[in-house]
């Protein structure tokens, strides 16, 4: 069966201007229990690659520069 991808609005937002992933920081990617954050090959900044979020907050709480914001996933907002 062929696969299609479908759109989803992700709860975790990263402010590229504040993110220092390009300087070697991997804190948010490291701490995520669901392993849904990645560092982009194009921008070298962190982003949410998979919409599988427990809205638990370590990524936001541990980010050294305050670049990460966790929102409540739309379906349960």
């Amino acid at each position, binding site marked *: 069966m062929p696969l299609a991808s479908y759109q989803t609005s992700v709860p975790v937002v990263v402010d590229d201007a504040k993110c*220092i992933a390009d*300087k*070697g*920081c991997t*804190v948010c990617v490291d701490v995520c229990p669901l392993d849904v954050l990645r560092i982009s090959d194009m921008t070298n900044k962190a982003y949410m690659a998979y919409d599988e979020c427990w809205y638990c907050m370590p990524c936001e709480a541990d980010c*050294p*520069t305050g670049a990460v914001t966790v929102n409540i996933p739309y379906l349960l907002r």
Partner: protein
Amino acid sequence: MSSPFESYDDLEDADERLQAADPAERRVAIIALGHSGDPAAVGHLANMVADPDAGVRQQVAMALGEFDGPEAASALVKLLVDPERIVAAAAADSMAEFKDPACAEIILPLVGHAHAFVRMGALRSLKELRCKDTLKPALEALQDPDAAVRVQAIGVIGFLKLEESIPALTALINDPDAHVRRAAVSALAFSQMKPAAETITRALKDADWMVREMAAETLGLNVNGSLAADQLVGALTDEFWQVRLKAIRSLGKMKIERAVRPIGHCINHDQANLRKEAAAALGEIAHPDGEAFLAVIADDADPDVRKNARWALQQIAARKARAGA
């Protein structure tokens, strides 16, 4: 395949990384040192307290929170006096984690610092150290113009549980700040001496409801609390139900028989919480006079009230049976 285990060689190139031109890169290096758990990291971190970048210093303050002992304390006290509030706040949080009493002598000089935030942070970190040398400076800090500093000083003194501090704590009953009065009342709980209980009792008449609530609760913890039974009975007519509730609970704990009627008169209160505590207290006291009041709430709409009433009636029945036997 690389090693599947977390590395324990974090310090290998630490110095080089800590000198990176980019402050963000220095931050990343500092985070790694904090996570290393290696006591040797403290020295490297201590070298960074004067970094020109406030974000870097903030990160150093957070990383030092992973360590305990005089070396970490020496570095953190420098960051607590940092002009940038984000740095000082991170340092204060990290210092609050200390457990090693040897940190006390390094922190003590800051209790007299010009800035209230520094004095507060220093006192806050001294509490858990429970070190007798901190008593005198903490007693002096009770005169601090800043109320938040006085609250922290009370904690330092209260944690030490020394009878000699009672007069100073008692004097705070007239403090203009309600938070200070509330903390002072709580800190008196440990004292075996009657004056402490008398002070707590006076606080039942405080202008602030939270102080009165704390006084009512603390009398239940104090060994001489039952001397204030009449005043606690008086508190059963306090305008705030949350105060009355604590008074009921303390009277129940102390098993004050002459409180049965006044507690019984609370049994019809609108607040189910209060009815429930009244029922429970009547059970603890277990005096037969409680039965009539408990009968009133036997069919209360609130199951928790009914449950406590049933339990209370059982206690009274058991006591009657014992008396009969």
